[in-house]
Each structure stands twice: as C-alpha cells, then as structure tokens.
C-alpha cells in the first residue's frame, strides 16, 4: 500500500483532470494489450476449480504454489450473492473470477411478456438500490420510440426524484463500505440517512423501494402537499451528517491506510474495460452523462463532475461522498426551478385519463380500461437510451414490432459491466483488500444478474 498525503480532504483533488481529449488512441491500445497480458481473469470451470481447489505445488515454469479458494456467495462482504473464485499465492491474489447468476430471474425475458406500461414494475427490481433510474431509462426509451416528449414539470420531478435516489444509493454505499472495512458504526449512520431519504421517496411514490413511479409519459403522481418542507428539513440536516462522515472516515488514518493505493486502475484500463461511473471518474477521467450527453433538464442545473486522481478505493469512496454534496445542490435547484404544469403527458393513447374524467366520460373509461388491459402500441423501431445511474451508465435497448410488448428489452446494467474490473483491480492485492475492492466497486447483484 502506498501512503499518500495524509492531509484530510473532503473532495478528491480535482487535478490533473484527464478529459476525453487527453487520452491518446495508442495509450488505449497499450492498455488493452496490457490487460490481455496481465491475465488477471481466472478462467476455470466448476469441475476444474473443484479439482484444483486447495494447495497446488509449484509448476515447472517456476511459479510458486497456488491455492484456489472460493469466496461467497453468502459471504457478508460480497453484497448479496457475488461469488469469487480466487487463485492465491500466499496472501496475494494472483487471478480471480467473479461467478454470478445466483440472482438471475430472467427479467429480460419477463420484460418481453409485459406491456410497456407494466415494464417499469419489472425493471425497477433490477438495481434495487437505485430503482428510479431503471424506471427512468425504460420510460425514456419507450418515449423515444413513441416520439413523445413529456411535460417540463414531469422532467423536473424525474430529475428531483432521481437525485434523491442517488443520495439514498450513495448513503447505502457509505453504510456498506464502512461495514465492510470494519467501521461498523458507519453502517448505522449510513442506514439512518438512507432511511430518511427513503421516507421522502415513500411520501411521493407510496413505496420505499421498487416504486413504479416514473412511467412512460411522465410520473405516476405529482409531488404531495408538504413535500417541500419535509425535503428541506432532510436536506438541512445532511451537510452536518456529512461532516460527521468526514470525521469518522475521510480524515481517519486507519481508513485512509486501508483504502489508499488499494485497487488501482488507470483511465485507459477503465475505458478498455467499459467501466463507467465512479470507477471511471476515480481515475481522474471526467465523464458524466448528465453533463456530457445531457438528458432531462441537467442542462439547466449547475453541478460539478467530481473526479479523483489516483483511481484507488479511497478515490471511489471520496467521489461518492462528494457526489452526495453535488446531488443536494441539484435537488435544491430542482425545487427552485420546477415549473408548474402537468406531471404527465395528457395523451389518451399513452397515459390513463385523470380519475375525475372516468366518472363523467364513457370514452375516458374505455381508454382507461384499454390502457391497463392491452397497453398502448409502440411504433416499430429500436432505440438505445442511457442515463447516469449512481453506478455508471445504465442503458436500455428496446426493440418494438409495433405491438404493445417489446420484442427485446435489454438493460445494460452498470454493475454488470463494472464487475469485470474486479479481477484487474484485485490482481496482486492482498486477500484482505479484496473486501475493500468489492465494496468500492459497489455492485448491486440485482443489476448484475437481472
């Protein structure tokens, strides 16, 4: 482990920032070659791993003895059901392989059986720590296929809710990251903050998780009365709590020793591996879809893309902490700038009529019935839409044949892609650091396995 400047900082050093313009193609190609040569990924079948488990004598090539060890899927630090097969040289990890699928429930197949209106209920269960982003990306893909634009207020509500969700997701990270590294008190603090944020989400959507709130055409309901006051109360307490996090973790020598210089990745390697989100930004590479390919109204709010400089576990932690602060800024701006108006599209072919209309209009009743039984038809075509979820690029690829069910509904889960960085991050690290590295990647297994 390399010890870096021990001065406590609340945000990672913002320089030197590597932008897309600073990366040369040959550097990228070198990284690809290096990743191939490193051979960090252990490629073993179940039977072979079983056979070779335990002690392996030194081979003729002179490499030392190796041990194949299994970690998970019920290990408490593996964030659910991630399983790792590790090849060890003493205390050091030489190669590793994440084994996934324990939470696979065929949600992409299920998505083909459901109408576009039912789709959000399905996708919201994928990344269960950030459910609103799944709903958002599915709804945006459906709307792109339909060629409709949702009302402005709906876009602002979506943005507000997603940023609240980003806060709660990063709080979950703070809690689990602390817990994984032995800062057990942090688990309770992170969970406390998250619970307060989930209560806000519950106030708007009726549910703590799996909201089915963002739907094609807008959102399910307008913000309730008294929401602004409750939101303000929570947002006012958060900065003080974040100061406590800094005291408890950021500036603490044990915490820094445990994370600094652990699980290092460079910008080129992260790009070659398709890593996005905090992993990519921790390398100092400034890329955030909210800023670089804006959707919703991210053009109209002011926020900073936080980058790290060393690409280690500490940077990934610090970036998330800083992103909490940025999200609070965005939430406040959303409340200030949100216009009045419709919270969903008034298009009887896409969204159900208002409840009051059903009592007085036969036609409205028929539309209501048809939308909920048959769904609405979506013109044929295919689109890929992506948003910046707390874990990186969350994409949705939809293929429509003109009916009310998609032919193909594919979700590009950021956790799934980021998980592929694990063997490279863990290579030559200590076995005790694997826990810190898994934690810093922040995989959500629902998103990995779908």
């Amino acid at each position: 482990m390399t010890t870096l400047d021990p001065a406590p900082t609340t945000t990672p050093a913002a320089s030197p920032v590597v932008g897309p313009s600073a990366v040369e193609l040959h550097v990228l190609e070198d990284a690809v070659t290096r990743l191939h040569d490193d051979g960090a990924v252990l490629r073993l079948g179940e039977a072979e791993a079983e056979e070779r488990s335990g002690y392996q004598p030194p081979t003729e090539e002179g490499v030392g003895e190796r041990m194949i060890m299994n970690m998970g899927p019920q290990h408490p630090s593996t964030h659910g059901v991630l399983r790792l097969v590790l090849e060890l040289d003493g205390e050091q990890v030489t190669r590793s392989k994440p084994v996934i699928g324990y939470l696979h429930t065929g949600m992409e197949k299920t998505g083909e059986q459901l109408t576009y209106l039912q789709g959000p209920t399905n996708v919201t269960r994928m990344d269960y720590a950030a459910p609103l982003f799944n709903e958002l990306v599915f709804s945006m893909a459906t709307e792109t296929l339909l060629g409709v634009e949702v009302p402005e207020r709906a876009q602002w509500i979506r943005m507000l809710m997603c940023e609240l969700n980003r806060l709660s997701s990063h709080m979950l990270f703070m809690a689990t990251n602390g817990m994984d590294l032995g800062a057990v008190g942090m688990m309770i603090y992170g969970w406390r903050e998250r619970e307060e944020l989930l209560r806000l989400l519950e106030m708007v959507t009726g549910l703590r998780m799996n909201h089915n709130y963002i739907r094609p055409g807008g959102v399910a309901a307008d913000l309730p009365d008294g929401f602004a006051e409750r939101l303000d109360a929570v947002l006012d307490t958060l900065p003080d709590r974040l100061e406590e996090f800094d005291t408890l973790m950021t500036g603490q020598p044990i915490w820094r020793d445990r994370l600094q210089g652990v699980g290092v990745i460079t910008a080129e390697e992260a790009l070659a591996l398709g890593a996005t989100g905090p992993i990519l930004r921790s390398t100092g590479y400034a890329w955030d879809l909210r800023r670089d390919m804006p959707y919703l109204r991210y053009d109209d709010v002011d926020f900073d893309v936080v980058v790290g400089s060393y690409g280690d576990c500490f940077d990934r932690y610090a970036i998330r902490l800083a992103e909490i602060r940025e999200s609070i800024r965005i939430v406040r701006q959303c409340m200030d700038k949100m216009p009045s108006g419709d919270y969903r599209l008034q298009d009887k072919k896409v969204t159900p009529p208002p409840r009051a209309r059903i009592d007085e209009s036969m036609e409205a009743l028929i539309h209501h019935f048809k939308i909920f039984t048959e769904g609405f038809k979506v013109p044929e075509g295919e689109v890929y839409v992506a948003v910046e979820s707390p874990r990186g690029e969350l994409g949705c690829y939809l293929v429509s044949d003109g009916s009310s069910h998609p032919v193909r509904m594919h979700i590009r889960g950021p956790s799934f892609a980021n998980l592929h960085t694990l063997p490279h991050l863990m290579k030559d690290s200590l076995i005790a650091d694997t826990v810190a590295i898994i934690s810093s990647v922040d995989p959500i297994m629902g998103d990995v396995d779908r």
Partner: protein
Amino acid sequence: MSEATAADAPAGEPAAPAELMFGVPVTRSRGQVVLHPDRAAYPGLVRELRAAGYWVCVDLCGVDHLGNAADRGLPAGVDPQRFEVVVNLLNHREPGRIRLRVQVPEDDPVVESLVPVHPGIENHERETWDMFGIRFDGHPDPTRILLPEDWDGHPLRKDDPAGRIPVQFKAAPSAR
C-alpha cells in the same frame, strides 16, 4: 434524445439505396445512427471505429427476431436473419453513440469475438452465448455466465418458452 447526429437525421425510414458510413450501410432509428456490417466486416469495423474515436464499447446484446413480422428497419442489401448481435459504441471526444447491428443466421450462429479489441465486453458476450446460443469465435472463456453450466437451452430465444413451474395441488395432510 439529444444525439449529436439528430440534426442531419430524417427520423424514420431509410432512403432506398443504402447510404454508406465507414463503408457499411447506415440507417437512422429515431435519430440514432445504426450501422449494418456483415459478419466478416464487423470486428474490423469496430477497430476502425475505435480509431475514429468510438473507443468505449458500452454494450453488446443479442436479439431474436423469430416471429417478428414487422419492418426491422434494415437497409437495402442487408438480408434479415433470425438473430442479431447489437453493439453500442460511445464516442467520448465528440459525445455521440453509434450502434452496430450484425445479422447472424440461425443455422450458423457464430460471430467473431470483440474481446481482443474491447476486453470489457467479455461478460456481455458470455451472456449473449448463455441467453441466445450465439457463439463468439476467439472468446477466451466461452462458458455460460448467468445460468448453471449444465443448463439446457438458451432462454432468451423466442422458441424457448417462458418457464412456469406447474403448481401441484395436493391435498394438505390431514390433521386427523
């Protein structure tokens, strides 16, 4: 979507003689640029695109068009096949996306692997093999990823029915 190419894109149907971009037919779907390389040209095209700035391979997935009678938006000269491999590439320099749709026939579902160019796509290709039975030639670890190794079939194929576990109603053991 504010895709960089939306301005010059007449959203909707492609023009009759296939327009070319990077030497392959191109269409636009809702303003998004879609290239239609054939299987042989596809890995070379991905390399070429990387040199042109599309250096992040964001996503790769399969599509099964069995029973899809709708217009698939293919340009003239591209024969529709049952399977498609869809690759999403991202340009960071001039933020923009490009999508590749490769037609893969049912009787020979093999395409060349992209792992030598984009090592991060390894798991996506394993997933596509797992779910669709499309093989990736040159893949370093062509095994199932989400399903157990001994699983039979490829569940995202249209002729692989959505499974239901039959509910067996048995008489509850009587307390008497």
